[in-house]
């Protein structure tokens, strides 16, 4: 039986590590053994690595809107954010562009948000010398929180706007980062809640209906938000609203969103004069 609330995730994590309870639940759910489940998740981690490594700076999307931005960011000198964040931003752009250019990525939870998790986990692993096993554990944490979000709210932009795609990815990544740093299950829930709070109401307004502008750049926002929220949670900052209630609020906001702001390419940035001009092309 899948987790339908963060509260139940936290209860399960009282007797074991949170990622282990997600693993155990998956084995029950799919009638699989631990080795099979771990093998599947490890393959996804390897595929995330590849999605960044296979980036080709010269590649452009069919529309011409995407390509080359990740390389530009990686090559920039003297960034405001410092070297670690520069790599986070560059990785988010690279994987986002890889997706836009019909390259191979891992939908996490969706293709449009595929840059968020690799953008935070790859640079962190490399900077802190973390093991790949730990990164796979992080993916279980992310999947556990993602499952709750998908069940109570949505991970589809057409249903819940961008808050449901980049927002969900950011919240999943925030919880995963807390695990990477050895934080508690409560801190994971707080990081997830704060990350979702920060993107509450974000609309899905892709220019010309394509997963490119602003989607690629919003992967950066999702990654940076995840890092900041994980740091807040690890510093002991709580969310005044419990995580389940934040997720429910996100669902309600998604339902209240007009269709023009839910992946139809008819509102927001897509409806600007420049956006319409691109759509005509």
């Amino acid at each position, binding site marked *: 039986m899948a987790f339908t609330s963060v509260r139940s995730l936290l209860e399960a994590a009282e007797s074991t590590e949170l990622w282990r309870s*997600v693993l155990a639940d998956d084995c029950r759910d799919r009638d699989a053994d631990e080795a099979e489940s771990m093998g599947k998740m490890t*393959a996804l981690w390897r595929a995330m690595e590849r999605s960044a490594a296979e980036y080709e700076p010269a590649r452009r999307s069919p529309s011409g809107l995407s390509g080359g931005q990740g390389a530009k960011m990686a090559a920039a000198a003297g960034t405001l954010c410092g070297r670690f964040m520069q790599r986070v931003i560059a990785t988010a752009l690279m994987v986002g562009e890889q997706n836009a250019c*019909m390259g*191979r990525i891992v939908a996490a939870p969706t*293709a449009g948000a595929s840059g968020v998790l690799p953008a935070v986990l790859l640079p962190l692993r490399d900077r802190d010398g973390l093991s790949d096993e730990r990164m796979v554990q992080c993916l279980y944490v992310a999947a556990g929180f993602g499952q709750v979000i998908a069940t109570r709210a949505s991970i589809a932009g057409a249903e819940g706007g961008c808050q449901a795609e980049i927002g969900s990815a950011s919240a999943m990544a925030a919880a995963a980062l807390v695990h990477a740093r050895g934080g508690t299950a409560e801190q994971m829930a707080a990081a997830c809640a704060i990350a979702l709070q920060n993107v509450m109401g974000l609309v899905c307004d892709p220019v010309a209906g394509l997963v490119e502008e602003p989607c690629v750049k919003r992967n950066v926002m999702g990654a940076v938000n995840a890092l900041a929220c994980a740091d807040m949670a690890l510093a002991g900052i709580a969310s005044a609203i419990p995580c389940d209630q934040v997720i429910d609020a996100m669902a309600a906001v998604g339902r209240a969103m007009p269709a023009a702001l839910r992946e139809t390419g008819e509102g927001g940035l897509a409806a600007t004069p420049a956006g319409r001009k691109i759509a005509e092309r």
Partner: protein
Amino acid sequence: MNIFDIMGPVMVGPSSSHTAGAVRIGRTARRLLGSQPVRADILLHGSFAATGAGHGTDRAIVAGLLGMAPDDPDIPKSLWLAEGVGMAVTIRTGEIRNAHPNTALLTVTNTEERTLTVSASSLGGGRIRVNAIDGMEAAFSGEYPTLIIRNEDRPGILSEVTRALGDSGANIATVQLYRDRRGGLAVTVIECDEPLDQRLLNELAGLDGVVRCTYLDREKED
């Protein structure tokens, strides 16, 4: 929804619904036909028609018809690869009445001049639903071993089919029945938990009143 519906699939972008789901639609049509099509007519409806070009929906469906999986890096080159294997492709846009926004109608023909039309929709996250085969309603995902039996609409046929399945030890997950009119042709769609063997399929195809028996094995992409 299991955790690997949240994390994954590994896929060629840019869209799980418009690209990965589209590959699965083409691949399912190929599996239903049972061989490589030599002609394929693809009608894109709704959002598939409006934003399909930018999402590579056309190339994705053709890639699926060539047997590629959603993570095949050759998906962007599929139109070119189709020429190489001698598959003639036409792609059109149009309206399909009452259809899901991400729907494609595929008409595929193989070397034996067998033609099949498949209507299928992409539901998000790469999941698909086949809506109709040869104009007859049928709703299934293709994720389970699936039997599609076209039979005469008269009493007793379903019990013969389920008896054969039961005798072979197959457990039925879902059963759906459709028909064009009373006493006409019916379609029985049965999803099973485990793959079915050829001997059972032959027995089913030979049952009195069964016009055609198509079997879709479990999708293998991992």
